[in-house]
């Protein structure tokens, strides 16, 4: 059966190569027979990739440890849930997952009824991506390889087991969503390249790929969010974002993808920034590959890198190949990308979008350069350096604050030309409220400049969003005579793209509150306690009752501390927490399971560090303010993206604004931000 899995990969590789050629012939000769054949080949790639995936899943579930991958990442005591997750626990399996997702995306594009003129080349480019992954899986890291020394009939009783850090629900979903995001950005890239190849100079490719882009962005957002939640709960250091190279690898394309989502609006509305949009989607796509190179190559040390220099080499070659292909095409077709509209004013939504793009790209540069700087320093100076939070926090914070400020300003500035009155109407009250908020915080004792600026910015942006929605509701109520609740719902639903964007911004601002809060009034202490002793931190009175030991399942043991949490001032019981150290048979060091008491105000986060025979234990205790808002905001962002994506009337783009009112085009389906 392992051979069947391997042959599925080889067959899929052959079919993908055939499909690429068939699609190119179909496009060049406009030949429907070749087109049908190429589509059949695409379907074949999808089916064989799926078959290979299912065979690997079968081996993982049944525990056939003669398969090297199954042996390395599972064991008899691993629950079924994590056996399934072992699919992406290692190099070969995760690349197979990538291929599985990519092949289905490719099939959807190949059989899409939209933009048939672009389908053949777009499908060929996506199949080329699949062919690369199939090549790697077939010839570099075969997921169906047998363990060394295995012979037919030999039974291997147990596997080495999964890395304990990966045995967390967050780590089960985080890679899948991240990959869905990574793979998703290949689709708009393929269409952008196709538009250049076919000399289609209009914004058709942008319209066709709008949903794909938002879906990719949504999944990448979710991937980053779940990654942060996993880090917070599982790594046990009290934080959620450590600026690890692998975290950065998924954050950088998220930044450029966000810039792309905004800049395409200018092309849709004004036929401008054509080159910039193609460059942005190219960068985003290439960064997804580069991120994978970082994860796979082991060139940078990371808490969750796979580290295989051979594989990294292939990814680097493929990344450079795709980058040069795209750049070459952009230069060759530069005449197609000439823009035909102008900016009427310095002060307009268009120009604010340019600043938004500038800051997002500036942030991407900061994170990218910081991530690769250890390599640059070693190459140039021969000196190894580390780049962590001490670099990223001070560099990213000012740009981030500027971005959130723009988030409040951009949506409310008029297209084409904003007047001073427009600015005063939209921003006076939010500005006053933000300043009052900063003043109150200052009086309450907040003295950190960034925190005050962060909270004031958050308040400003929230106010502009609320004010805009209230204003829209009022106008709708006046025009239609609907009651305010109905007018509000109607307003939101009739233009889901615009208001979905507002919901996303609102969620992001809540995330900002969580981030600033957790870096502002946080407390931490390390305390050794004997059973029965207490300690006070923040508004909590903690009593260490006892140290105990208990089995978890059949093969794990945990040492836990039983701690009572009371209100420090009132003395009332708030609950119990139980930080643990879990001993896995597959790991020399015990894994930390934190004790967490989470409220909207703050998280009480306790780590059991060490203990002695007398039952004394040392704890690291942290108070992380407002962290819950980070997660709440994150899920609101996801809801906003789904709201904007929801099909039907209200989800389309708005009218085009070109040059002067003479060229005002009829509304196509809805007004858009």
């Amino acid at each position, binding site marked *: 059966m392992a051979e069947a899995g391997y042959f599925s990969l080889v067959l899929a590789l052959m079919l993908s190569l055939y499909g690429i050629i068939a699609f190119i012939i179909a496009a060049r000769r406009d030949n429907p027979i070749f087109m049908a054949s190429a589509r059949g080949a695409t379907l074949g790639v999808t089916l064989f990739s799926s078959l290979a995936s299912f065979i690997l899943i079968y081996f993982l579930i049944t525990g056939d440890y003669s398969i090297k991958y199954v042996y390395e990442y599972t064991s008899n005591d691993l629950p079924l849930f994590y056996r399934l997750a072992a699919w992406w626990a290692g190099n070969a399996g995760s690349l197979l997952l990538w291929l599985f997702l990519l092949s289905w995306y490719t099939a959807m594009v190949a059989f899409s009824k939209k933009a048939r003129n672009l389908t053949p080349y777009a499908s060929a480019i996506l199949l080329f991506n699949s062919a690369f992954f199939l090549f790697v899986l077939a010839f570099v890291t075969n997921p169906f390889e047998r363990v060394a020394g295995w012979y037919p009939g030999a039974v291997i009783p147990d596997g080495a087991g999964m890395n304990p850090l990966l045995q967390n629900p967050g780590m089960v979903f985080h890679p899948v969503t991240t990959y869905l995001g990574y793979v998703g950005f290949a689709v708009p890239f393929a269409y952008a390249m196709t538009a250049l190849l076919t000399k289609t100079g209009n914004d058709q490719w942008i319209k066709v790929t709008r949903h794909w882009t938002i879906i990719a962005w949504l999944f990448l957002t979710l991937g980053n969010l779940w990654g942060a939640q996993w880090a917070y709960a599982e790594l046990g250091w009290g934080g959620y974002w450590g600026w690890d190279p692998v975290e950065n690898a998924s954050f950088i394309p998220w930044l450029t993808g966000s810039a792309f989502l905004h800049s395409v609006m200018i092309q849709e509305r004004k036929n401008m920034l054509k080159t910039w949009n193609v460059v942005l989607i190219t960068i985003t796509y290439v960064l997804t590959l580069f991120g994978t190179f970082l994860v796979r190559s082991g060139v940078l040390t990371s808490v969750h890198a796979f580290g295989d220099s051979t594989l990294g080499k292939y990814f680097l070659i493929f990344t450079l190949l795709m980058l040069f292909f795209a750049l070459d095409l952009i230069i060759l077709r530069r005449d197609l990308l000439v823009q035909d509209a102008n900016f009427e004013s310095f002060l307009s939504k268009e120009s604010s979008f340019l600043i938004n793009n500038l800051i997002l790209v500036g*942030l991407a540069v900061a994170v990218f350069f910081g991530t690769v700087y250890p390599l640059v320093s070693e190459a140039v100076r021969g000196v190894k350096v580390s780049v962590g939070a001490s670099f990223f926090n001070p560099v990213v914070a000012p740009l981030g604050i500027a971005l959130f400020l723009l988030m409040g300003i951009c949506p409310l500035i008029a297209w084409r030309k904003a007047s001073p009155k427009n600015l005063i109407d939209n921003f006076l009250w939010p500005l006053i409220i933000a300043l009052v908020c900063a003043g109150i915080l200052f009086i309450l004792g907040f003295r950190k400049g960034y925190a005050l600026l962060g909270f004031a910015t958050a308040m400003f942006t929230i106010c502009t969003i609320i004010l805009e929605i209230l204003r829209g509701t009022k106008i709708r109520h006046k025009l239609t005579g609907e009651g305010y609740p109905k007018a509000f719902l109607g307003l939101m639903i009739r233009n889901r793209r615009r208001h979905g964007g507002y919901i996303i911004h609102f969620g992001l601002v809540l995330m900002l509150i969580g981030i600033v809060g957790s870096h502002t009034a946080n407390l931490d202490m390390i305390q050794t306690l004997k059973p029965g002793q207490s300690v006070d931190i923040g508004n909590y009175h903690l009593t260490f009752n006892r140290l105990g030991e208990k089995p978890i399942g059949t093969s794990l043991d945990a040492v836990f501390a039983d701690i009572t949490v009371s209100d420090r001032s009132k003395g009332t019981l708030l609950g119990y927490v139980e930080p643990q150290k879990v001993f896995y048979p597959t790991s020399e060091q015990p894994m930390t399971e934190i004790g967490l008491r989470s409220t909207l105000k703050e998280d009480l986060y306790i780590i059991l560090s060490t203990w002695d025979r007398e039952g004394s234990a040392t704890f690291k205790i942290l108070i992380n303010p407002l962290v819950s808002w980070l997660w709440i905001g994150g899920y609101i962002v996801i809801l906003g993206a789904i709201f904007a994506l929801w099909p039907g009337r209200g989800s389309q783009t708005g009218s085009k604004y070109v040059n002067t009112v003479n060229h005002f085009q009829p509304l196509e389906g809805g007004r858009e931000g």
Partner: protein
Amino acid sequence: MRKFLPLVLIIFISLLAPQSLSAEEDWETRPIPTDVEVGVICVLDGCMMNLNACETQAAQQLRLNIREKMYKEGLSKEQTYAYLVQTYGEKVLAAPPKRGFNWTVWLAPFVVTIGGGALIYLGLEKWVLRSQENEEESTPVTLNPEDEKKLEEEIKKYI
């Protein structure tokens, strides 16, 4: 008085002894300020996590090292960092020191952003100027009442 001097000295030393012993014990267990730990990378076992985030044996060893320098030898934060760099190399710091070639990584994001801002300004200036010229050439459109009514109906649909 002289014959009591050794006794006085013994009593004095014996009074001091527990204190110096407790000071000796103290430096080994005194917590390291978070802002010091945040700036250090756990390099001893290659885990490369921030020291404040790391609980491995190697991290404990590094912490002991830092405590010895800060509390036993009385070095400042900067002096302790200098000692760590001398012992383990620059990679022990969580950010490249702001000197020499390292300035490139500190300044690149701001140079790119400010440079990009300047390019946008120049581009906008050109586009706005071109647009104003076009506007002068074009004739404004006035809507007849029928078109105005149609426009109003359209707006109602989309608000």
